């Protein structure tokens, strides 16, 4: 199997070569054979020795296109189909172009302090749509594109969760 590492754009390939029994396997990564011994495993977590080093990995996301594992506290996302995918790693700080998206989502949980636009308003990218408050901090949520406010999904004083849609902008 070939995997593309989102974090660094490297491509890695790996396969399980054989099982040695007793939860031990020979695997091949980048054409090097390595010994893998599973110590503990559940559907969400695995503890294993890779050659002589211990690792703990938690599986946090697994879709048809990508899998995210947290290895020894480091979050790593693989694209399963490296030829097709080009999603930018969240931590790179570079947001992908979202002009085509209608939904303005909240990247933080919080309470709606104020709504600064109305349905039907013409707004520009960067205009403040609303202000959220969380942990004593007020955060302005800005439009991700130029467009018209098609609908507002929030009410003043209400709480929103991370990734909730705040407004549709077309």
């Amino acid at each position: 199997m070939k995997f593309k590492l989102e974090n660094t754009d490297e491509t890695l390939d790996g396969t399980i070569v054989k099982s040695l029994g007793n939860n031990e396997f020979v695997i091949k990564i980048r054409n090097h054979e390595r010994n893998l011994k599973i110590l503990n495993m559940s559907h969400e977590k695995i503890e294993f020795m890779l050659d002589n080093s211990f690792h703990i990995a938690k599986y946090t996301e697994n879709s048809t296109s990508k899998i995210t594992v947290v290895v020894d506290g480091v979050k790593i996302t693989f694209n399963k189909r490296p030829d097709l995918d080009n999603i930018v790693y969240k931590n790179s700080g570079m947001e992908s172009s979202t002009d085509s998206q209608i939904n303005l989502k909240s990247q933080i949980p919080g309470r709606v302090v104020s709504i600064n636009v109305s349905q039907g308003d013409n707004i520009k990218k960067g205009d403040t749509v609303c202000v959220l408050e969380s942990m004593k901090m007020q955060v302005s949520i800005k439009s991700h594109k130029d467009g018209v406010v098609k609908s507002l999904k929030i009410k003043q004083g209400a709480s929103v969760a991370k990734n909730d849609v705040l407004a549709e902008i077309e």
Partner: protein
Amino acid sequence: MIKKILIANRGEIAIRVIKACNALGIKSVAVYSDEDVNSKHVKMASESYHIGPPSPSQSYLNMEKIVEAALNSGADAVHPGYGFLSENADFADLCENKKINFIGPSGKSMRLCGDKMLCKSAMAKAKVPTVPGSPGIVEEVEKALDIANNIGYPVLLKSVFGGGGRGIRLVHNESELRQAFELASGESKAAFGKSALFVEKFLPKIRHIEFQLVRDKHGNAAHIFERECSIQRRHQKLIEMSPSPVVDQKTRDEIGQLAVNAAVAVDYHNAGTAEFLRLDDGTFYFIEINARLQVEHPVTEFVSGLDLVKLQIDIANGEPLPFKQKDLKVNGCAIECRINAEDTFLDFAPSTGRIYDVNIPSGPGVRVDTYLYPGCSVSPYYDSLMAKLITWGQNFEEARQRMQISLADFYIEGVETAIPLYRTILDTKEFISGDLSTDFLDRFKILDRLRDDLKKEASQKSEAALAATLVHSEFLKNRIMAHKEQSLRWKAQLDRN
């Protein structure tokens, strides 16, 4: 003598005070909002009283409710922690009126600390230098121009109604100042019915250095050295240390004495902090007194060996300070990293939710003050400080090494933290050489370096991650196979029936 203390706070600082009570044989009383039913401070206290809904204004800022809990529990003292009501003079007065010992300065002293202009003039009398500028409010633009000419451009035009960066204008020359004065004055009159502007020298690159001070009710006072808190984001401290790399013993004695003078000037008693700005030329300007225990008090505890909460309680009991200035000596070096629930790459925006797992570091010279336990929650209603990681070493380098390994050991599953950022900062040559300033993150493009470090780390772990992924795929495949087989068995059985 205090026998039972109500802690009018939550989170790590409530736990810190409860532990001090336990060690001293004093009963502790916790208060909690609906949001904190399962919080650790509630479980650790001798008694716990419910005080209202999650919103701070209805619970931890609700003076009446808190005083009621104190009276019901028979607490003879209140410890306010930091934040919430800790610098609320009315609350201090209310406690004293109800014969509850408020562990902090008097309401009167607190009011003096809290009012910028009153405090500034008290300091002028006590010869404690403040940032050059107008001695009070400037009514006329000509007066502002005089002062600006006197202290030199650029200057800041500030409104007393501002705060946290609001209502501040940077001006570089006379014409800019005239224009800004007119605008600001108009804005202020429109908003508050009157103009209240003052002028201060603009300080481009500064360090935040503060002095811990203690003063008892008999007038004995001392400073317990400085803390350098220059690593900040949006004017909030991230990393603190004691001693400061730019403070030698002579400077410590000199500025420490100013800090003590400042405490005397406002008749302060309790533990407190005198905050200063320091310029690259070595000039110190007093900015304010924080009339409470600071978040970063543990670094001072490490280098002094003193227990500041215990000292606060002793002072509230009317006891004299158990030491003199000359008895105090800096022992080694301590660093604190604030472990906030926030996302470095979203401009430090809050990150809340359930903590699925947590590993708290330990070892020689390591201290962690935290409310975290596996399964607890980080609430959006309160501030983002989840834990303080403090390390001590015989010198800065040992403290730094211990901080690095403790950061690597500190695992929090469920929210984002600045732990990776701190690991990057602590490895920079600029941090190691002590080249600190409040614009450290911007000045050295630390976030870019963090991105590079994260990429390197991901690269190092990529093979292990791939191995885990391979096993997982295999595991899923087998489960699907097993599931199919079982389905077939079921089908066969159904067919038989």
